[in-house]
């Protein structure tokens, strides 16, 4: 078992024939991802990487029965692409593109929610279920199959965390990079319960960052709903205070979003909090060998 995606997930790629889309779609296919087609306007009817290209997501869904979309379109078109996927009946959109305007993501996420479509990202490495399905840009070889679920805001810390878990002799069920933009799709509080419900996941690694209060909300949820052991690292304990002009954002969230505040909240919720990412693997080992 796993969460979100597996070997049977039918995946299309929006921005299929572009440079980034092509490169990473090919890597995903090599990993074993069931990519059934892609979308690039005005290239419908062509074949790319051995799969059909469609002009619209609606056509692609109708022809292939795809339920997941991996989005690689340029930043200015991300909002449009997400809304198109939502209306076409896609169930999960994984948005890799970096630099999408916040206003566009705000509208796109609201529209996705209205149509019951889950989103991951933007500006994230994607999601991977080890040995089954990779939807994103992570190096597949470091994710060995195992019993640890991983959620991270940061891309490279996802790799670091997964690598350490595997080096300790364990492995990954599913790893999700949720991204760190102001508006993101699935977050800790949607994904943690999925790992709790997944029989194969026995331990959860959660990697956060300074800013916002998603980790504080996660601490509350963990205390109330999560029975599996959780290891957490919050990046940015030594980061300098942001050079912001106004402080309205911090007042809105009711927290300053410091690493210290988040680490304390997680510790109080019974989470094993490590002070350096170099200790993630050891902490997982400690919890799983109990």
């Amino acid at each position: 078992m796993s969460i979100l995606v597996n070997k049977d997930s039918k995946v299309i790629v929006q921005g299929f024939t572009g440079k980034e889309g092509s490169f990473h779609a090919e890597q995903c296919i090599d990993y074993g991802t069931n990519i059934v087609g892609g979308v690039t306007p005005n290239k419908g009817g062509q074949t790319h990487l051995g799969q059909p290209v469609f002009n619209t997501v609606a056509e692609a869904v109708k022809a292939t029965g795809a339920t997941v979309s991996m989005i690689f379109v340029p930043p200015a078109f991300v909002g449009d692409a997400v809304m198109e996927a939502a209306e076409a009946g896609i169930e999960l959109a994984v948005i890799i593109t970096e630099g999408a305007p916040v206003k566009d993501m705000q509208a796109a996420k609201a529209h996705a929610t209205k149509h019951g479509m889950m989103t991951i990202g933007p500006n994230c490495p994607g999601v991977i279920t080890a040995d089954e399905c990779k939807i994103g840009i992570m190096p597949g070889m470091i994710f060995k199959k195992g019993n640890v679920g991983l959620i991270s805001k940061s891309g490279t810390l996802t790799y670091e965390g997964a690598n350490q878990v595997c080096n300790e002799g364990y492995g990954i069920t599913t790893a999700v990079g949720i991204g760190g933009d102001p508006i993101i799709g699935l977050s800790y509080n949607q994904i943690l319960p999925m790992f709790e419900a997944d029989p194969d996941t026995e331990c959860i690694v959660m990697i956060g960052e300074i800013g916002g209060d998603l980790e504080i909300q996660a601490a509350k949820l963990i205390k109330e709903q999560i029975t599996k052991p959780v290891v957490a690292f919050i990046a940015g304990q030594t980061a300098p205070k942001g050079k912001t002009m106004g402080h309205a954002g911090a007042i809105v969230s009711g927290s300053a979003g410091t690493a210290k505040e988040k680490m304390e909240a997680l510790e109080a919720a019974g989470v094993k909090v490590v002070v350096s990412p170099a200790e993630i693997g050891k902490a997982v080992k400690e919890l799983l060998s109990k």
Partner: protein
Amino acid sequence: MNIHEYQAKQVFAKYDIPVPKGIMVESVKDAVIAAEELGGPVWVVKAQIHAGGRGLGGGVKLAKSLDEVEELANEILGMTLVTHQTGPEGKLVQKLYIEDGADIQSELYLSVVLDRKLEMPLIMASTEGGMNIEDVAENTPELIVTVPVDPAIGFQGFHGRELAFGLGITDKAEQKNIITFAQKLFKLYMENDAEMIEINPLVRTGKGEFIALDGKMGFDNSALGRQPEIAAMRDLTEEDPDEVEAAHYGLSYVALDGEIGCMVNGAGLAMGTMDTINHMGGTPANFLDVGGSANAETVAKGFEIILKNPKVKAIFVNIFGGIVRCDRIANGIIEATKITDVNVPVIVRLDGTNAPEASEILKNANIANLIVGNDLGDGAAKAVAAAKGN
């Protein structure tokens, strides 16, 4: 991206949002000419820097004669203004805004920001203007009114009523004035991809009108491409020159005051590397994210920028290659040692995509001062030891 007060007021004026008359100047002579043109009888001489708290720092002063304008312009222009938002090093004042004095009956606070939890913009207001809004939120949160506005429906009448009644405004003409003001501000926020607009103080005049006496505005960097007028307002002199140069090469750099230079891929791992160094008793000299498209040239540039800092005693290169290929980073390190005189120990930890090839490249290059870190913890420990001369 942030803009100056005088620029924010230009944008306000474009949306018909009332602001006092004012002129931006860059010399004392022009300050007096501007004051003459505005007419007086009172003027405010305001330092233009990208930071709040200017008044308390001595950067905003009232003048009652042209002589006083000259005197104050002389005093403020060229000063290094230190406020709670500039850091102890302060900011050099290179521009002044000479403004008409306003008829102030009371001071309010008004801002528009993104509420990340509600995932929509939020209008925030308070009767306690002119003060640090964080203190108001801390001490008297009941005096802050918040009105979220869903962009799908836009600014409706009820949003305006919630705002006006929330601020305790009972006069009908005043209610209409504040509602119109907020409506225009929300329109500006949406149309310009603003990230944050803050007016503190928002002044209520004796006639019951509302005027933006100050204006701070920040914009979504990802949207600047479609906001050319806003993008043109960028003032590079307000930004750190090393950070600007780094950004030109696709590097994200922030100087810190420690001894270990860091070069990492990904912001999260970069922060995690700094945290690890700190935890092991060392001090990071900088944050540097080489980004996803790192190549030999950008890595060499990164070395050059890090080595400009004389405090650097060791460099820790920590790469976990996903999209970034480790062999390219290895070639970049070799390139850097050819171009720049790398006279400090360099600890290199390369993992992920093409790491074995990279390790081979570095081994064959025979670079003096190069130490291999086996993993994050090992690399950080070696960097800390090297910086201490061990």
